Structures are given as structure tokens and as C-alpha cells.
């Protein structure tokens, strides 16, 4: 029979200290790696004492001792850190306090406090480490806390699921099954405050070469580096040096400060390209960049194996390049592409922030009105660069708030990125589709061999303008600067270079073996973790939604979307199948079916809830010979159910059969 307990007795019964202690210790465990070891020792002793008290209630911990230990812990933290503020001292203090709080868990209120605070303590741990493993581990204390809450609120421990901890986990798993998707939705949709727009990447994400954002001043840091970026072997046709524009990525969004990449839409390789003349076949050996961008000569129409082509004619590989990697690819420098673009694309390539840099906008718009074609308009800008005192310098100085205005109209000193970014801005301001390409320009032929070397110092940014009938055309505004206005320092000959290959291996991109793939996959995971979990900020959120085709989603819409999706999941959790018990005891089922039969024949009343004993008595009272067989079976049932006989599956089956065969 089920247990019945009054509220007073339920509230005042002893707490399930074992479950609470388990949750408490699991919460603290990861913190012990980051706080002084003596805190861990203090806490563990306290936990052991509480455990001993739980098992032997006559053992009491004196109150003065609890107070003394707590005071000692506080003093020790202060002695060790000389302060209570700051991350390390703060966490050490709350770790000690939380650890010793277990000494004072007497009421349900204490238990609720210590369990709820457990969640907060887990966050404390995240201030030290955000490794994937730590994140995964945190599900264990979360489950333990839930289990402890459950134990406090259950009449009997583990009653929830077949009296085992595993069963409880399975039940709690049901909660997580719905809670985790909600968590993901909230994580993706919850509007992030735009912190600093350019965040320094963590150590593990540091890349060399180009990055996928370009704010002014970014490429300068590369320009001074003499590191080899990649090497190229041309198959037969070697292009003119002035044609050596190496694309890495295309930036098509401007937020007022930086140019960055919007969505990345892969496109299939072009086919039937053999008929085009002017194809250049070449092999690139890329230094490890820890990013997945591939370098291609302007412009690739096919992608190498294990790589994909993007709609803006750049390419990337399936994994980050951790090793020196080689791939073969072809480019078509003279082919006219994208002669038509859709209105949507036209719109997105002329998109600018709604305000800022007003003077440059007006300048561009009035210039456009004074000429009769887009071509002439761009040419006029290039002439302006050549004519006006524009300088090419590594030290452009600090730009004011409206960067374009500041550069274009007053300072006129900058680097390739300033020129490329500004040209794209001016073109867009006049309604001409434009985008920034970053990559490398030029290269030098190794005199000892037949390959070309491209260095970080070759990093470059230029502009692509879309002209009606011509498609995307490369315009390099930096080249328009009058040569006498290029800083001398830049014209100096490169210093002695170590151009020979190092001794380490090259991985061919199309021959990546499984071990390597797995290695790349692991790295990919870690990288994605960094990118999409730890560095998921305002900008990445925008980028993600842009990838899904929602380029201008507002915080408002994010919140609405979030609420709708979460509501759907909560509704899903209220579906019937989710609450159905998977296993119904077949014996009970047979018995209730039998009772239903009796009710259907009005032998017993519809609303009556009769146990088997009562039922047998009732049937007996009818003095109907028919029911004698029933009574025998009912007695078997009672014996099987309640007499505490050892479980016998054969007897069970027989009994179920007999119950089912009873004729009413």
C-alpha cells in the first residue's frame, strides 16, 4: 500500500543529506583546480564530518567549532590574497563559504539555499575555464542538484523510477530532453549586447594571414611580417606580375567601422570550362593558417577536393589548415562573370549603415550626378586619388569618428585597406555595387626554382565594382596613388629571405587520410567551440542569421522568434506521449481489465474502487456459484501481489492468463 504522510511530518522529516552532499561536492569539484588546495581540504573535511553525522546521528558537530572553522577560512583567504575583491580571491572566498555551508544544513530552507546557490557556483567555475570538457562535466552537478531537489520533495527516495539512481537519471533525462533545445534556442536568439566590435581572439584562435574582418589598421600588422604565406607552382602559363591578385575572402558588409563578411554561400563548381582560353593551372602550398580559407588566383571557378567554392569566387577547405597544405586549382583571370545580378544582390551590395560619414556620401553622390556612367564615376575617384595629396603610408595616424570622412576629406594618409574600403564606401554611397577583397598581391619568383613565394607582407586589399554588362571588375585604388607619394620605407628592397622549403611535411589537400581527418575534426570541434560558443557575440549572432538569410534581423525580432520557439518546445513537453509510462505492469493491467469487465456488467458499481480483497468478499456475498472460480483466482492474485512470495515469472504468466480468462 502506498505511504501516506501528513504535511507536518513531511516537512519536518530528516533531509536527504546524502543527495545534497553529493550535489554539493560535485559542484565544488571543478573549482578545486583553481583555488588554493587548503580550501579543498577544509571543505572535504567538513563534508566527511557531515556524512559521518548523517550516518551516526548521535555524532554532533559543536556549534563553536563550525563558527571557528568558518572564521578561520575567511581569515586564511584574506591572508592568502590580501584582499577579497578580484576574481581569484572572490571565488576562493565563496568557494570556502559555500563548502562550509554544508555544516549548517538543517532545514528545507537551508537545503534549497545550498542547492540553488550550487548553480551560481558552477558559473564561478566558468570564470576560470570554459573548455568543452568542463562544460560537459557541468551537466553532472546539474543533474545531482536536480536529484537532491527531487529527493527533498519525494515521499520516498527514488520512488520516481524503480528505486534506482539510474532510473532517476532517466526520468530527469526527460526534463533535459526539452530543456536542452530551449537552452539552444535561447543561446542563439537571446540578443547579445554589442561589446567591443573587434574582440581579440583567444590564444587558440589566433590566425596568421588575413582574418574575416577588416578594420583600418589590420593589414598593417601583416605588412611588416616577412613570413612566407604560401608558395605557388604555375603549370605552364605564368601570368603577368601585375595580374597576381590572390583572393582570400570577400567582405561585403560595412558597419561604419569595419568591413566584414556576411553570409558564406557555397556554390557548385562551374562546368564546361575547358572552352575558355586563358585558364591558369597552378598548385598552391599554403603555410598553416589555422583557418579554412584557401588562397586562389583571381578568379577560381572550381574548388579543390575537400574544399568548396563560395559565391563571391573565393574558396575554403572543409577543415582548418593546421599543416602546410598543398592543392591544385585553376583560375580564369579574364572571364567576365555575373553579368546580371538580382535586385536583392544589387541592394545588398549597395547597403551602408543608415547614418555616418555624411560628407563623403554627399561627395560621392554629387560626383556620380556629374558624370554619365558608373565607369566614369569610378575613374573620377581614381583620378582624385592620383591628383589630390593622397599618401600611402604605414602610419596613417588616428582616424576620427566618421572614419571615411576623416580619411577621404581631411587626412588623406592611409594604407591599401583605407583606399579599398573607402572606394567601396563611395561607390555604394552612389548606388554602385561594390565590395572589398582581401588577399595578397604580387609575389616573387624563387630564382633557384620555378615557384613563386608570396609573403605576409604581400597582404593587400582591393575593391571589386560591379558594372552593368561587365560583371565584377577588380579596381585597385592603391595603384592609383601617385608614386612620389608612396613612403620611401615601403619601397626599400626586401631583406634577405629564407626562401627554401623547411624540412617538415606537406599535406596534399586531396589526400588527407582518416587519421589526419580525425585530427582535423577534433581541431574543428575545438575551433567551432571557440567560435560559436565562447565567442558567440553580437556580431556572430548577426552573421549566423545572415547565413540563414535573415540579414537585417532586429533584437525585437530575435526576442519574438525566441519566445515563439520556446513556447513550441514547452507545448511539446506537455504532449501526452511524453508523460506516458512506458512500462505498465501487465498483472495490474490484467486485473484492471477484469474489474472493468465487472463494471461493464454492473456487477460492481461504476465509481467504486475495490481492491482484490474487497472484491472477492463482494463476489462471495452475491452467493452466485459462477463467481467461485473468480474468487479462487482473486485469492491467487492477492497471494502473488501481497504475500511477499519470491518473484516467479512462470507463476506470473499463469496468473495473468487466468485473470484474462475469467468470464463475466
Amino acid at each position: 500500500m502506498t505511504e501516506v504522510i501528513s504535511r507536518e511530518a513531511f516537512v519536518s522529516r530528516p533531509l536527504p543529506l546524502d543527495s545534497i552532499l553529493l550535489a554539493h561536492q560535485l559542484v565544488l569539484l571543478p573549482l578545486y583546480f583553481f583555488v588554493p588546495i587548503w580550501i579543498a581540504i577544509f571543505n572535504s573535511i567538513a563534508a566527511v564530518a557531515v556524512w559521518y553525522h548523517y550516518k551516526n546521528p548521535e555524532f554532533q558537530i559543536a556549534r563553536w567549532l563550525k563558527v571557528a572553522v568558518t572564521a578561520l577560512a575567511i581569515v586564511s583567504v584574506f591572508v592568502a590574497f590580501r584582499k577579497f575583491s578580484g576574481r581569484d580571491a572572490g571565488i576562493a572566498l565563496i568557494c570556502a563559504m559555500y563548502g562550509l555551508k554544508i555544516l549548517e544544513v538543517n532545514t528545507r530552507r537551508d537545503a534549497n539555499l545550498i542547492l540553488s546557490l550550487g548553480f551560481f557556483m558552477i558559473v564561478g567555475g566558468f570564470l576560470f575555464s570554459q573548455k568543452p570538457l568542463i562544460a560537459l562535466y557541468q551537466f553532472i552537478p546539474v543533474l545531482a542538484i536536480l536529484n537532491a531537489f527531487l529527493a527533498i520533495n519525494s515521499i520516498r527516495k527514488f520512488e520516481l523510477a524503480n528505486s534506482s539512481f539510474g532510473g532517476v537519471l532517466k526520468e530527469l533525462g526527460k526534463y533535459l530532453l526539452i530543456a536542452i533545445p530551449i537552452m539552444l534556442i535561447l543561446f542563439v536568439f537571446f540578443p547579445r549586447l554589442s561589446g567591443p566590435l573587434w574582440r581579440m581572439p583567444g590564444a587558440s584562435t589566433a590566425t596568421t594571414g588575413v582574418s574575416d574582418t577588416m578594420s583600418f589598421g589590420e593589414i598593417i600588422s601583416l605588412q611588416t611580417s616577412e613570413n612566407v604565406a604560401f608558395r605557388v607552382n604555375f603549370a605552364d602559363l605564368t601570368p603577368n606580375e601585375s595580374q597576381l591578385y590572390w583572393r582570400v575572402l570577400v567582405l561585403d558588409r560595412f558597419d561604419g567601422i569595419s568591413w566584414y563578411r556576411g553570409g558564406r554561400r557555397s556554390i557548385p563548381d562551374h562546368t564546361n570550362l575547358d572552352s575558355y582560353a586563358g585558364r591558369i593551372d597552378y598548385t598552391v602550398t599554403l603555410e598553416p593558417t589555422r583557418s579554412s580559407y584557401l588562397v586562389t588566383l583571381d578568379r577560381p571557378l572550381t574548388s579543390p577536393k575537400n574544399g568548396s567554392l563560395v559565391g563571391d569566387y573565393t574558396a575554403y577547405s572543409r577543415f582548418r589548415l593546421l599543416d602546410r597544405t598543398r592543392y591544385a586549382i585553376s583560375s580564369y583571370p579574364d572571364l567576365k562573370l555575373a553579368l546580371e545580378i538580382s535586385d536583392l544582390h544589387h541592394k545588398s551590395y549597395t547597403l551602408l549603415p543608415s547614418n555616418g560619414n555624411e560628407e563623403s556620401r554627399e561627395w560621392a553622390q554629387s560626383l556620380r550626378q556629374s558624370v554619365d556612367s558608373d565607369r566614369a564615376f569610378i575613374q573620377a575617384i581614381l583620378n582624385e586619388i592620383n591628383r589630390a595629396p593622397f599618401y600611402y603610408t604605414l602610419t596613417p595616424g588616428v582616424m576620427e569618428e566618421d572614419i571615411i570622412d576623416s580619411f577621404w576629406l581631411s587626412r588623406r594618409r592611409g594604407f591599401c585597406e583605407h583606399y579599398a574600403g573607402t572606394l567601396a564606401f563611395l561607390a555604394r554611397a552612389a548606388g554602385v555595387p561594390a565590395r572589398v577583397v582581401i588577399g595578397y598581391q604580387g609575389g616573387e619568383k624563387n630564382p633557384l626554382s620555378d615557384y613563386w613565394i608570396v609573403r605576409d607582407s604581400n597582404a593587400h586589399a582591393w575593391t571589386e565594382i560591379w558594372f552593368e554588362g561587365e560583371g565584377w571588375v577588380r579596381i585597385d585604388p592603391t595603384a592609383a596613388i601617385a608614386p612620389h607619394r608612396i613612403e620611401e620605407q615601403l619601397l626599400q628592397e626586401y631583406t634577405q629571405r629564407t626562401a627554401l622549403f623547411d624540412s617538415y611535411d606537406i599535406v596534399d589537400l586531396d589526400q588527407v587520410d582518416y587519421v589526419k581527418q580525425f585530427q582535423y575534426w577534433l581541431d574543428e570541434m575545438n575551433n567551432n567551440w571557440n567560435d560559436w560558443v565562447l565567442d558567440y557575440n553580437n556580431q556572430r549572432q548577426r552573421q549566423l542569421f545572415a547565413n540563414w538569410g535573415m540579414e537585417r534581423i532586429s533584437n525585437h525580432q530575435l526576442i519574438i522568434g525566441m519566445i515563439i520557439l520556446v513556447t513550441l518546445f514547452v507545448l511539446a513537453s506537455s504532449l501526452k506521449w511524453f508523460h506516458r509510462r512506458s512500462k505498465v505492469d501487465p498483472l495490474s493491467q490484467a486485473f484492471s481489465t477484469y474489474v472493468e469487465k465487472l463494471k461493464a456488467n454492473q456487477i460492481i458499481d461504476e465509481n467504486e474502487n475495490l481492491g482484490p480483497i474487497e472484491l472477492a468478499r463482494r463476489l462471495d456475498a452475491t452467493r452466485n456459484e459462477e463467481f467461485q472460480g473468480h474468487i479462487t483466482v482473486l485469492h491467487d492474485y492477492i497471494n502473488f501481489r501481497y504475500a511477499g512470495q519470491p518473484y516467479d515469472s512462470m507463476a506470473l504468466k499463469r496468473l495473468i492468463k487466468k485473470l484474462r480468462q475469467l468470464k463475466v
Partner: protein
Amino acid sequence: MKQLIEAIKSKVGQFFGSRMPIGDSVTLNQKSIYILPTKAGFFLLGIVLLMMIGATNYQNNLAFVLTFLLIGLGLVTIVFTYKNLQGIQFSLNKPGEVFAGQSVPVAISLTSKANKKHFSIGVGFTNQEYVLTDVPESHFSKVLIKVQTAQRGWLKLPRIIVTSQFPFGWLRTWGYFGFAHKVLVYPKPIEPVILDRQDHGQETDEGQKVDGSEDLYGLRSYQQGEPLTRVDWKAYARERGLFVREMVNYQTSQLCFSWHDFPGVADETRLSYLTYMVLDAASQNLNYSLELPGTIIPYGDGELHRNQCLNALALYGIKIPESDLQPKGLAA
């Protein structure tokens, strides 16, 4: 001020009660179940807000993840807490005889309609006093809650509150329902002390009563389920507990209990005296009649007769609503 609070309380109570199901076997429906966070729930909500602030401040995305996981768990818990209370059928096991001043043990069976377990279900008349039980998947559990009776007559059972904080104690869900069944409360049996033997009723055949017949057979404790006709009400009225007289044969005397036997005694006390006498006579299996103003129950014996007399006593001077005219069903 106090009155105002009381008035608001009763209004709020009416609002919550207005949609409650009523019957002898009821299941709480979605409309009649309410849910609110408990103190522990509000505390956790505070912690979650704190975590959210921390996560934003430190731009710590894992802190966001955990915060969002907790929000998700909280939302799921609403559903699970709610579902835990839903689909339980509450059936009243009709209470037996009850006398004014006694408490009625109201036995309620809880059965799961969906063949699933329900946990830590509290059943009671107030928020503070209730009993908790689990409802098994394919059987029923039974709780016993007590209602104190004050006066004789029909007793409408107070509305019943079903409540649960399962699984985590963050949320409290509750619902109300009422049982349509009314309990007939008999007058409190009081031994007529002022009577001496000569005046004791109007025994038509006084000499036949054998003194000390009780002493011959003695008393034994009352067992649940035994007919109440043999209970020693004298002992009960003296608050010694329920005892049953064991007797082999009974005197066949004829007694007439009348309202007019007790001149100058208050009405309710008269009824109590008469109740005592009816019970006493019935327990000795005597033949007796009852005379109340406007009602005369002729001589008779047996359980039916006894109940008839007790009903008349319980309902003396009380208007019986039409719907309650059918004979009172006793617990089977």
C-alpha cells in the same frame, strides 16, 4: 482592516473555487488547476537573474548556457508539475455514521486515469493541513482527512484542496474540488443524567429489564466495520472510547422515547438525550418507538428502524431540500 482582508480572502477563494469540479468522483481538469512559484522557486529565479547579469557582464557564454538551461528546466518543470496533478481521479469513500462533535473521517481514493504515477500529492481542507501520498500507476492510494462536525443535520463537506510541489519544490500547483455527497450528522448522544430509574422512558414492561445484563458479557473494543448498533454508547458518551457489548440474548421490552419526556430541557439537549436512548436501545436490540413533535416512528427494531429514528433526530426542525429526500445511503 481585518475584515477587509477576510473579505478579500473569501473573494479570492470564491474565484479559485468557482471553476472547481463537483461530484462524488472527480478529476481535476485544466481549468481548475493553478500554479505559482514557491519561495524556493522565487529564490532560484533570483539566482538565475544574478547568473544572467554575471554572464552579460563577463561576456561568459558558458554562464549563458547554464542560465538558459535553468530557464529551460524551469519551463519544463511547469509542465511536469502541472501534469503531476492532472488526471487523478478522486473518489469519496462514503463516511459511516457520525455524531455531532465527532470528526468525520473522509476517506478519498486517488486513482490515476492515465495509468501513470503521480507523486507527492497533498490532499486536505486547507493549505496548511494536508496529507501527502503517491498515486500508483495501476492501483489506488487512499487518504483519510478529518472534518470536525459542530452540529447535527446535513454536513456539506468543505471543498478539498489538492496540492503538489513535485518534482523540485520550485512551483506549487493546486486545485480545488468538492464532493456532492452530504453527510448526515446525528445529534451528539448524551446520557440523560437527571433521570432516575422510574422516569427512564416509559417502559411499558418495566419488570422485564434485567439489571446488570451488561456485566455478564462485558465489553470488547470496537472493530472497524462492525455494526454500530452494538456499540456501548454509554461508555462512548463518557468518553471512554468505542466498545461493543457482547450479548447473547436480548430482552424484548418495548420502549417509547418521547420528546415530552424531558420537560424544561433545551431542544438540542433533548435530541441528544433521545439519540442516546435510541442508540442504547438499539445496541440492546430492544423494541422501541420515537415520538417527536410532528413525527412519530412506531415500534420497531433492527438497523433500518434505528437509522430511521436517528435520521428523524438529526433532521428535527431542519428543512430537507427536495433533492436530499431519498434515503441516506450508508457505506457498503
